[in-house]
């Protein structure tokens, strides 16, 4: 059984560009959360999706947006990239029938 799958694994973008990151949750999980992890820091919550709607949001600007599809997979979009957006972006999935959150290996985004 595959866990959380994220793509791509690495990405290099130029300032001002837009990027889309993808996440497939663990089988049986219906809730997807996105986190940003800067080097040497703990993950910071961006937002959570459930039933194709944003259920909760952290302190991130509107440049960060997302989507959840009927199959529970999710996308994270970041517009007008800044150098400070360089980070590891983690997707976590969860289920009401299972405790904890399962994380993917992340997408390493570098903005130059």
């Amino acid at each position, binding site marked *: 059984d595959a866990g*959380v799958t994220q793509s791509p694994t690495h990405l290099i973008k130029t300032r001002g560009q837009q990027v889309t990151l993808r996440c497939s949750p663990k089988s049986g999980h219906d*809730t997807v*959360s996105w*986190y940003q992890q800067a080097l*040497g*820091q*703990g*993950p*910071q*919550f961006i937002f*959570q999706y*459930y039933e194709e709607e944003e*259920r*909760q949001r*952290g302190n991130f600007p509107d440049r960060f947006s997302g989507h959840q599809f009927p199959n529970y997979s999710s996308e994270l979009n970041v517009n007008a990239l800044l150098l400070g957006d360089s980070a590891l972006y*983690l997707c*976590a999935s*969860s*289920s*009401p*029938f*299972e*405790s*904890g*959150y*399962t*994380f*993917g*290996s*992340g997408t390493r985004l570098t903005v130059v």
Partner: protein
Amino acid sequence: GESVGLHLPTLSVQEGDNSIINCAYSNSASDYFIWYKQESGKGPQFIIDIRSNMDKRQGQRVTVLLNKTVKHLSLQIAATQPGDSAVYFCAENPSYAGGTSYGKLTFGQGTILTVHP
């Protein structure tokens, strides 16, 4: 605001020793806590969790202790092995309701555990 912090940013131990990693949290409303292990280039890996109605929970070689009076959490690893070397994070969720995984996790900055053979 909410915050979860760690007392020790680094911890070095010898193989076979017991390790203790500490964590302080500031949100007294937090109901659910998780310890994660993160190896280089990987996402956080679930180790053990504990609800606020418990003060101790044991897993395989790991024990989590929760002291709500002083808002302190610790992870004990017995017979530490080189494969335990990683960054350890505690995380809290103030909106975990029953079996529903809802809301954000707030992570601390992490403790780097190094195990010497």
